[in-house]
């Protein structure tokens, strides 16, 4: 299986890549890790005439923690994030999510920016990025804009990134209680993608839940914040019955649950409730 032929560009800087994007318009595709795009090209589901390989742009690979802000370059690989010591300390949810993506070969190539932009409804990153209330920075030749995670996922395989834009970094505010977090998923046995995945980041105070931020992936056409569930936890002591009652609303934001040969919509809803409960309890236990 060989892709349709294309012209290949390997710009060294973001500016150069943006110029190429403007020049080639919608016929061009950006390539970072290639773990979603290359299979798509091989199956000829897409046949761009120009491939702009941004994998060699060093500025897009940085990971830094300074002050209250964590910045992750769009081209940081899942493996880079999984093993990053400072992230483990300040925001372990990132590494825990990264380590559950696909397999080691995919994690060595695939990037956070590519995964988010691809917006697969069963991808893992969206759950964590929503739970962390992250911001995604996108640049075009016109300038830079900052997209909130809650505005980023638009529909199945559709993110807010425009064809003339490059995602440059993901910004996360350091959580108040980094350890009070978890990502739990039910992997689809063959691909590893999430049938359902739940990411939780909590803030606890004197045994009560001050704030809960919960991202759910795999259930609907796009990942979402389980705001009804979050509201039901706020200000409450996290005893079993409170968490059960709240987690029963984990699917409240989804009108259409995904259905395929691996799981019916009802089963996915069930999984979302069960895993939301487990996630909240596990995150609270770690606090």
């Amino acid at each position, binding site marked *: *299986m*060989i*892709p*349709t*032929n*294309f*012209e*290949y560009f*390997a710009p060294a800087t973001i500016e150069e890549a943006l110029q190429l994007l403007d020049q080639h318009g919608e*016929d061009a595709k950006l*390539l970072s890790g*290639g*773990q979603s795009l*290359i*299979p798509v*090209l*091989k*199956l000829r589901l897409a*046949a761009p*005439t120009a*491939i702009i*390989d941004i*994998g060699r742009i060093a500025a897009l690979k940085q990971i830094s923690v300074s002050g209250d802000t964590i910045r992750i370059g769009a081209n940081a690989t899942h*493996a880079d994030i999984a*093993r990053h010591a400072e992230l483990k300390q300040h925001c372990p949810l990132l590494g825990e999510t990264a380590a559950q993506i*696909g*397999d*080691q*070969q*995919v994690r*060595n*190539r695939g990037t956070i920016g590519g995964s988010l932009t691809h917006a697969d409804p069963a991808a893992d990153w969206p759950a964590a990025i929503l739970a962390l209330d992250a911001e995604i920075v996108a640049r075009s030749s016109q300038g830079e804009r900052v997209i909130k995670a809650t505005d980023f996922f638009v529909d199945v395989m559709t993110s807010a990134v425009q064809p003339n834009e490059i995602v440059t970094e993901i910004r996360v505010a350091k959580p108040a209680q980094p350890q009070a977090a978890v990502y739990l998923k039910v992997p689809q046995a*063959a*691909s*590893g993608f999430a049938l359902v995945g739940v990411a939780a980041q909590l803030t606890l105070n004197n045994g009560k839940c001050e704030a809960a931020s919960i991202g759910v992936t795999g259930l609907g056409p796009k990942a979402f914040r389980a705001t009804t569930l979050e509201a039901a936890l706020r200000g409450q002591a996290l005893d079993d019955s409170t968490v059960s009652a709240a987690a029963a609303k984990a699917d409240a934001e989804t009108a259409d649950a995904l259905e395929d040969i691996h799981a019916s919509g009802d089963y996915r809803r069930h999984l979302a409730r069960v895993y939301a409960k487990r996630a909240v309890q596990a995150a609270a236990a770690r606090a």
Partner: protein
Amino acid sequence: MRLAGGVLPKVCMCGTHILSLHPQRKEEQRVKISLSINGTQHEADIEPRFLLVHLIRDVIGLTGTHIGCETSICGACTVLLDGKPVKSCAVLAVQANGGQVTTIEGLAKDGQLHPMQEAFWECHGLQCGYCTPGMIMAACGLLKETPNPSEEEIRHGLEGNICRCTGYQHIVDAVKYAADKMVA
């Protein structure tokens, strides 16, 4: 089918695609790349759509790297790129330009099997052998990250490699055997 004005469109061989409506494609581009494979520097002049696995097998002639699924699922095509296991059917050859590739042929030194190869031999880690080169390269990558893995870590580390013969138990044993040998 006729376009406006009664013009007969030019169609492709299968008759369904109107060629004149296809996006304009440039003449096939060729790119010169240079990369090290098992310590030897190679130059190649290739189409950018060429996959790394095709370069390794068809241009360089190292057929130890296998193609199983060609859809980035089975791991048979695993090689080390700059020391890390990757599926060479999911990497364009141009992406490896300037890089260092290690294939199964690059493991043995001076006629001595690499400890991982020896371990697969000793522990019966293979039956038909089709998955074995990829399995061994993935296992080598795993031990670089985790020199002394638990059984669970071995199974997690090899999730990207499918074996239709062994049932995996002997493969896990082999990786453990190699780890013990390499740490010692």
